[in-house]
């Protein structure tokens, strides 16, 4: 009983440690990266988005056509997928731009 509970605790602390480490580095890197002012349309964003869409959005299910949803719905759905699939935020933004330019 004692012995079998030792390794799980180790495992748990490892996960916790990794988590804290990740959160630490993440929040350090986070502040400059959060570019809310990217309102200027960047034509390359759509191109990057198309690539990221092709590479990421067909991993778990079939690629869904941009025509399926309206712009506002893509905003919500891609955020939903960003959380579900642990996507990088800039990638998700590019994908949104691509989907909204192609529906």
């Amino acid at each position, binding site marked *: 009983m004692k012995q079998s509970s030792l390794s799980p605790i180790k495992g748990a602390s490892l996960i916790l440690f990794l*988590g804290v480490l990740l959160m630490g580095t993440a929040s350090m*890197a986070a502040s400059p990266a959060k570019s809310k002012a990217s309102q200027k349309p960047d034509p390359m964003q759509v191109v990057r988005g198309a690539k990221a869409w092709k590479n990421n959005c067909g991993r778990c*299910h079939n690629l869904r056509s941009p025509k399926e949803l*309206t712009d506002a719905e893509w905003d919500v*759905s891609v*955020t*939903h997928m960003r*959380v579900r699939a*642990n996507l*990088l935020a800039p990638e998700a933004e590019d994908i949104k731009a691509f989907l909204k330019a192609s529906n």
Partner: protein
Amino acid sequence: MRKILCGTSALAVIFFASLDANAQSIQNTDPSSQALLERIEKLESELNALRQAISQSAQTADAAQATAQNAIKTVNVVQKQTAKAMQGRYSGAESDAKWHLAGYADVGFVGSDRPGADSFVTGKFNPGFHFQYKDLLVFESELEFSTTSDGETATELEYSQFDIILNDYITVVAGKYLSPIGQFQERLHPSWINKIQGAPAGFGHDGVQPTSDTGVQVRGAVPIGKSRLTYSLALGNGPRTTSEGGVALEGVGRDDNSNKSLGGRLGFFPIPNLEIGGSYLTAKVGGYEGEAVAHAETPIQVSSDDPLGLDQARYTLWGMDGAYSKGALSARFEYLKSHRGTLFSITGEEPLGDVLPRLGMEAWYGQVSYRLSNVGDSDFLHNLEPVIRYGQFRISGHDELEEENAQDRFNVGLNYWLAPTIVAKAGLEWRNFKVLGVDSEQLYQFQIAYGF
């Protein structure tokens, strides 16, 4: 004859004379010419009037044209504004709150080589709701409606969670969420995604894979080079002992012990098309406390006076998963292993309590599918996708659970995709039970699923 000739010449003389007179002077005219003249004058003035009228109507026409042009300009402006307004409406540029109604539904038929087991299955209707406020928060929830075998409507809250987006790398999830352990529950179980009707053995309800949990998660991704590392760490109410002495791995609205489960998954991409993940979960479980306790308002009493220290047992789970997808090909693999220590618990059969031995569970599956989108030139062929899956589920330390669930399971299926989210599936499933004396079973499965 002469008389006639003379008369005609006289008339002619008069006629020519009068013409001549007309030419010489307008005044000196005879009455008939005067009348003619008057008529001409009248015609002339009428002509003038007409000219005036015409020029007036030309002006009117010009004015009309100008008005029309103005109207066209106005229409253009309005059109542009409407387009802008529509854009504003749909891009959500102006609205802080957006929402999306999604989900899926399926219907099906399952036949079996066991007598009397063929049946239409109503399938499920799972509406999903997503509400987003700016880039800050998403609330997402999914319900599951289904009809039980005795005709009742079953409703379940599949998940109901806040996703608080802290920054580019960290999202905090709070509520009831699908378990991030492994892949099947969180990513593959919806019937429009799952390529085979039903879960692999051990990955559905009553399996080794947790389906959901209630608690908080910290999750996200951090870039490493051109790729990323994904993480999901969860602190939840954790598993609970069932009345049969098994382990229930579903999110409960209330913890039965103050010990929380801690677990999660890390994933990375050694090559762009391949994702590898590792999962871990640890928790303590108490004994089963009876039906009423789970719903009671009073605090749950943990019997800590147990001299053997068997009132709580350690539960651990670890696993690995891999997913490769490239074009038409998709291949997946998942492995999970869990154990729970010896535990003193009430069970359905032993109301006074019993010592449950160490419970071990292990399950894995591999699945390969290939969409025939590049085979031949028939549209029908292009929509077909053959799939195979093989998996095993093993249980030790609980005879009843082992008898019911321990098996090798082999599936072959053929899917026809009517659209990227609409699929008709036909499949065969062989269940080869591992406990001696339990007959193997062969199932025929048909299903139509639609994700929206």
